[in-house]
């Protein structure tokens, strides 16, 4: 039970149950569907970006608590960030969820996203948490390549 609570922290359960920024963004500059074929999680991400600044994000979709909470927390974290800051956050977040031995400072700089600090103990669930981020990267790249969590 304790190690489960370490994965499903209050923050994650809360955002999984009631995701923030959930819905359509009418004036999105970028829009992209992400899909995790292994588990069927899918989301549609809308981004309003101008001159390298992310002004707003929304998402719709369905999936497990981890994937919904991750998308929700990502949209909160990225509002008002530059594209460079977003890339840096993704790199830090990726390290957090894949490396059990990640440096402690990382958790501080990630703020609320640090709720996923114990995900590295559950390797099969890492893709659930990174789907939103991979979809973001694909949305901003405006390419037609399939979104991959590999």
């Amino acid at each position: 039970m304790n190690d489960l609570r370490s994965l499903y922290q209050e923050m994650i359960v809360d955002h999984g149950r009631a995701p923030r920024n959930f819905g359509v963004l009418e004036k999105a500059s970028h829009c992209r569907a992400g899909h995790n074929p292994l588990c069927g999680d899918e989301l549609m991400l809308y981004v309003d970006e101008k001159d390298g600044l992310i002004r707003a994000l929304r998402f719709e979709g369905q999936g497990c608590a981890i994937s919904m909470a991750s998308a929700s927390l990502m949209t909160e974290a990225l509002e008002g960030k530059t594209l460079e800051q977003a890339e840096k956050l993704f790199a830090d977040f990726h390290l957090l969820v894949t490396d059990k031995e990640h440096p402690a400072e990382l958790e501080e700089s990630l703020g609320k996203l640090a709720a996923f600090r114990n995900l590295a103990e559950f390797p099969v669930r890492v893709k659930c948490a990174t789907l939103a981020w991979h979809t973001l990267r694909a949305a901003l790249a405006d390419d037609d390549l399939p979104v991959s969590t590999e």
Partner: protein
Amino acid sequence: MMNFATHRQDFPVLQQTVHGKPLVYLDSAASSQKPQAVLDALLHYYSHDHANVHRGVHTLSERATRAYEKTRDKLRAFINAGHREEIIFSSGTTAGINLVAHSYGRSHVHAGDEIILSVMEHHSNIVPWQLLCEERGATLKIIPMSDRGELDLGAYQNLLSERTKMVAVVHVSNVLGTINPIHEITRLAHERGVPVLVDGAQAFGHLPVDVRALDCDFYVFSSHKAYGPTGVGVLYGKKSWLEKMPPYMGGGDMIETVSFEKTTYQGLPNKFEAGTPNIADVVAFGTALDYIQEIGLANIVAHEQDLLAYAVERLRAIPGLRLIGEAAMRSGAISFAVDNIHPHDLGTILDREGIAIRVGHHCAMPLMKRLGVPATARASFGLYNCRADIDALVDGIVMAKRFFAA
């Protein structure tokens, strides 16, 4: 009723703890565990008898050939096939279906023809036919089902036409557990001279399978879901069809003579078994068949039906839990959804309790779409399961509900 608790002891892998809890294995529909006898058979074969089959004059090759062919004889009897050469070994159910789709499909399916599948097929009984249709300009027709998870035979009858070249249906649904009325399906197809392929992956080892009583033209299944090793599949085909079909893969073992001008092929079953087969696993599959027969298939069926009835009763009593698929005739797989808990989260939470279930789309995405769910949780049974396993599952689900309600 036999004492199945003693049979559980036959499975070494089940005698372990996972995350500090005794392993409760409820994922036999994905793959069953193996009894010690099968493990011993593998070791014995490699320790004493291994050589290549069908080629040597030496003693080991003769022994290996005999052991390999003995499994074919056991299988013939097990499914009541008319002839031993109607049993073709491959790598699994998927390979068997691909064999028929290629060999039968390329010689019998043409532009404008139709192939009938059901909405509850596993991807392995969809994609090979879809590839064939794309190549030949044919079309797939899909038998619908009721909300309870039973095929609509009236709609099926209307789909059958002079354009139909094959009906390919699952015997037991890997998601819903529905046992389909195969005999009725073949009877209707045969009225029009259409052959029927049955995907028996979930049925073999869990239900009596009599291919002559079912009167199907092809029946395909895997060893690994029936207590045997991975990497062995069986294709039963009526001799009359198999003889008419061209080889699927070319290579050694399937030829009579080869020259650069012309190759002539072996007769059945070798025509469809190119290359060195999976000898050791086929031999050990024979031991798995013996194991099933020692316990008695009828006893296994009764035991699994008892577990299923108990699981339905206990799961139904959990508030907020919805069973998916409630066919009148069903076998040992049970799918469900729990309000406000995604199947993946449930799977993770149960795993930490030592309970292994399958979550996801179960390689049946069209069926998930029909059911209107992205994924389900599925518990499935083997002869080694007992009521206490279901009690553990129920406790785990109740705990998960508390966890997410908190």
